[in-house]
């Protein structure tokens, strides 16, 4: 049994049936992580001692027949934006290079209670701002499939550890595509659930009306298993509606017969790599052969999503990052200056990287008196139209099928000096965040250069079960 190739579902069974132990799994993933990390830079911290202690405890529970959950003893990695009690959490920013949180994020608590083993913290774009993990104070994460290309971002490290067999699954965050785009770049499954489905308490906020928590897995079934543990209302996050959490495995093998799948024409337009377009169209054919009806639909406001996002997101980001002033949170600057104002200037000048500064500047500008209505309020109204696109189209079809990213993984340095080009890589993922609907990226082939291609499935709010059902049907058909 090759432990590194197992899905979480298979691992869970192997643990229950005593075919392997959590310590064996944990050691195998730590060893592979350490072997590949010098090249890939996916982990920014290994928590080996804690991981092995957790694994030993899980093995004792299995021996006594008292396992905590289906995820008990499974080794996972956390994006370095999830607060972990007593373990450095940097958001890959110099601003937080010495920050050790005094509490766990709610997601971390839930995983801990389920018996999950934490291998370490993964690399990301600083404060989750970027599409390539190049904006990390630890340097970029490279793609396990082709280490000459980036792993995407902002959750690049978490994507790379799953595709590179350095963790069984990993946690990430997705504000404009930060789980789905890297999942597409490295060739694994990336889930962005409905806005508010998973508590964000204890996860550093980027843009609060768009931020979601999600995960990377090898399979669709694994994604469902993990959401089962994490979904639900939480009193510590007032944006989590009290919507019941269904059994996500119940209908997962029901197939797609009779389902209506929409192909939004705007997602296949100019700017989408022809090889990516062809792969997703081929996936549509697979669905047809499985008994689904496929039809073209239209989401006419798609082309305004990036512009809307690059007003709303920086506005919220600039407000959220105001707390990093080197006083309550953030590094004390080397040069403190004369006055308290100088202290702020210096703390933020030294602590933030170029992309964060750029976005704080845009956010501050669009929220300033005189520009608020022209930019911010206008963008919020366009957001309404983008959301209404989805409300309307989901009366016509059950699920949407699109490319995840318009381009495959690129080489480091290709877009770093052209912020707008980098922003356009999010063009097909932003609308799901704008409207709050769940979306999942699934591998659907490779380019002629051998780079992974991802397809994106989208369904109405709080119908992740349907997302898994449709995703699993494709996965099974391709096996």
């Amino acid at each position: 049994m090759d432990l590194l190739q197992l899905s979480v579902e298979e691992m869970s069974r192997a643990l229950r049936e005593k075919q392997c132990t959590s310590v064996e799994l944990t050691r195998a993933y730590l060893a592979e992580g350490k072997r590949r990390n010098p090249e890939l830079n996916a982990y920014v911290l290994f928590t080996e001692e804690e991981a092995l202690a957790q694994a030993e405890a899980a093995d004792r529970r299995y021996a006594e027949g008292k396992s905590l959950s289906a995820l008990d003893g499974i080794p996972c990695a956390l994006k370095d934006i999830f607060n972990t009690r007593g373990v450095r959490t940097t958001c890959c920013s110099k601003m937080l290079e010495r920050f050790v949180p005094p509490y766990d994020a709610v997601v971390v608590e839930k995983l801990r209670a389920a018996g999950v083993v934490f291998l370490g913290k993964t690399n990301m774009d600083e404060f989750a701002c970027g599409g390539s993990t190049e904006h990390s104070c630890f340097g970029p994460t490279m793609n396990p499939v082709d280490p000459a290309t980036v792993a995407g971002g902002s959750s690049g490290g978490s994507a790379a550890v799953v595709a590179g067999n350095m963790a069984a699954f990993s946690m990430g965050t997705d504000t404009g595509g930060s789980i789905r785009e890297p999942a597409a770049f490295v060739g694994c499954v990336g889930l962005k659930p409905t806005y508010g489905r998973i508590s964000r308490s204890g996860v550093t906020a980027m843009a609060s009306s768009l931020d979601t928590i999600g995960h990377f897995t090898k399979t669709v079934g694994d994604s469902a298993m993990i959401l089962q543990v994490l979904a639900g209302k939480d009193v510590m996050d007032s944006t989590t509606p009290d919507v019941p959490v269904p059994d996500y495995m119940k209908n997962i093998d029901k197939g797609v017969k009779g389902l209506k799948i929409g192909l939004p024409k705007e997602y296949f337009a100019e700017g989408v790599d022809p090889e990516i377009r062809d792969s997703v169209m081929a996936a549509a054919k697979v669905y047809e052969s499985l008994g689904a009806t496929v039809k073209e639909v239209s989401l006419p406001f798609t082309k305004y999503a990036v512009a809307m996002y690059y007003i709303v997101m920086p506005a919220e980001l600039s407000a959220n990052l105001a707390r990093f002033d080197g006083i309550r949170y953030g590094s004390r600057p080397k040069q403190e200056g004369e006055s308290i104002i100088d202290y702020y200037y210096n703390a933020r000048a030294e602590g933030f990287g170029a992309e964060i500064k750029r976005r704080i500047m845009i956010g501050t500008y669009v929220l300033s008196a005189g520009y608020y209505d022209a930019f911010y309020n206008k963008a919020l109204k366009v957001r309404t139209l983008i959301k209404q696109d989805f409300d309307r189209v989901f009366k016509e079809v059950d699920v949407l099928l699109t490319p995840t990213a318009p381009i495959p993984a690129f080489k480091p340095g290709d877009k770093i000096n052209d912020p707008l080009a980098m922003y356009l890589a999010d063009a097909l993922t932003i609308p799901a965040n704008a409207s709050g609907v769940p979306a999942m990226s699934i591998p659907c082939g490779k380019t002629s250069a051998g780079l992974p291609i991802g397809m994106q499935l989208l369904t109405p709010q709080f119908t992740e079960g349907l997302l898994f059902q449709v995703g699993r049907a494709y996965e099974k058909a391709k096996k």
Partner: protein
Amino acid sequence: MQLTTEQVRHIAKLARLGLSDEEVKTFSTQLTNILQYVEILGEVNTDAVSPTNQVTGLANVSRSDVLHGNSASREDLLGCSELPVEQDQIRVKPVIE
């Protein structure tokens, strides 16, 4: 829409963000490009459209004012600061002269 270096410096001041002369120059060009790009929203007629601030439909969410089981202690939270702590407060430079 052209953002001058003077405007860039003013925004940086509002954001309490120290910028080097080099950064001011770069941002003046880059922010201008981004702001020109977002002008595309001007094509959309939003006269009869109300803004979307959030997508949950929730309003006035409240909870009882009790400590969460996993809450950090006062000392732990004060410990997050790199500045000296005195009498449960963080010592900073004078705010009012």
